[in-house]
């Protein structure tokens, strides 16, 4: 199974947010999507999720165009950057609702409540979502993303707002899923996390895909161990040498 972006273009008004993006992602990869603010990272993710509809080009999920489709999303777990939920719903109800949505969408659904256990969410099940702190909301988001044992995980700033312990727990969970051969797509501003979690790097700038390489290759190329440094070099070098 793989995800294929083919010549994706998207503009919001005058600004071209995605310009001719083509990209193949495969199972077993853990892809860090990097780039300055406004480079199109979020739009890329959103277009994969069907939230943003590309102006041209197509996205193939397991060989099928996702346009006007929604069933493919039963294979995706998504953890949004900001988890704002209906304030008067309780955590338990939100989880039940997600289960309701997923039920019948896929054969043999597996419920993975490991995150719920790790974050000890069950004892807060009866709390309305509106009363939760930002960190707890993040935990709920994470729990939802992993809940259905999806083949593809899309994690938008997963560790932002989590306390160090929770952050570590989440990361180990991500690594575990990675070992199972899932496709993981992460955006983050915390380079150390990405270094730990990812096998591949997508670098975007001004709506263009500048780099898509294995992390190891980049390390060799730049003679740098640290992803942070590599990125800094990337930004400085203006890419002229690197693009083949």
């Amino acid at each position, binding site marked *: 199974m793989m995800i294929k972006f083919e010549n994706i273009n998207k503009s*919001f008004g005058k600004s071209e947010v995605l310009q001719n993006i083509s990209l193949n992602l495969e199972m077993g990869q853990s892809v860090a999507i990097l780039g300055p603010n406004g480079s199109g990272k979020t739009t890329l993710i*959103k277009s994969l*999720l*069907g*939230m*943003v*509809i590309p102006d041209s080009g197509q996205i193939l999920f397991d060989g099928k165009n996702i346009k006007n489709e*929604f*069933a*493919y*999303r*039963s294979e*995706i777990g*998504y953890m*949004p950057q*900001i*988890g*704002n*939920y*209906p*304030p*008067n*719903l309780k955590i338990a*109800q*939100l989880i039940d*609702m*997600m289960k*309701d*949505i*997923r039920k019948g*969408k*896929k054969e043999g659904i597996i419920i993975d409540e490991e995150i719920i256990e790790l974050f000890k969410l069950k004892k807060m099940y009866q709390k*309305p979502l509106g009363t939760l702190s930002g960190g707890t909301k993040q935990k709920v988001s994470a729990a*939802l993303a992993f809940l259905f044992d999806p083949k593809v995980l*899309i994690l938008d700033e997963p560790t932002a707002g989590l306390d160090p312990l929770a952050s570590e727990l989440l990361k180990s969970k991500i690594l575990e899923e990675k070992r199972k051969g899932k496709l993981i797509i992460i955006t983050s501003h915390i380079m150390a996390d990405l270094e730990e979690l990812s096998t591949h790097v997508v670098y975007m700038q001004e709506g263009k895909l500048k780099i898509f390489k294995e992390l190891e290759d980049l390390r060799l190329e730049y003679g740098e161990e640290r992803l942070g440094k590599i990125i800094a070099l990337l930004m400085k070098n203006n890419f002229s040498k690197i693009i083949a």
Partner: protein
Amino acid sequence: MKKTIKYVVYDIIRNRFVIGYTLLLLLLSVSFFWFEADPNKGLLSLLNIILMVIPLVSVIFSTIHFYNSYEFIELLSAQPMSRRTIYFSQFLGLCFSLGMAFLIGVGLPTLIFDGSMRGLTLVLGGLLITLTLVAIAFLASVITKDKAKAIGVALAVWFYLCILYDGMVLMVLVNMADYPMEKASLVFSALNPMDLARILVLMQLDVSALMGITGAVFQNFFSSTWGVFISFVLLLLWVITPVFFGYRIFSKKDL
């Protein structure tokens, strides 16, 4: 979809504002009927509420709700769920919640104190007005980019429908007094859901006055059940049309 609606409704009906709105309506309705010896006057006071307050609350609350649910809508759209299900579960959830608020706040006391045809018409008209403004709010929300703009549009729509429009109709009628404006004036009222609801109620409360307007078109319209039927159908169209256009836009909207 049904299950999603359930959760949307569950969220909204525990909203403090909606609870307050229901209680306020209940208080107003009961006091109108309690303190007016004549249920007719109670109905008229309620008519004013239905024509001014209920549209305002419905349109503003729906717009705010839509934008407050924006991240949630995003999350839902990352689930294996069609845009249609997302949109209509939000819409129907809101319709159900505000509809219930209206039915408890206004419907129940009205039917208790004046369970006649006119009371029923008033309640039905008010319910349709609520739904219309929820639909309009959704349309306003999907065509705008941010909450402030959407609230602005919603307020403008309310002001136009509830205040400006009739004034404009009056101006037209005054200026065109020399022309036969019989059909035109009926068409004018069909173009505003508030007018339609109001005329539905008038046909119950003021039928003796309406029958005094000479002119075959009026006579036919007001004296037959056709008039009532047509008004209801048009009001329903006022719900369906914006919600349908809203859906068309939402299904292609970038979240």
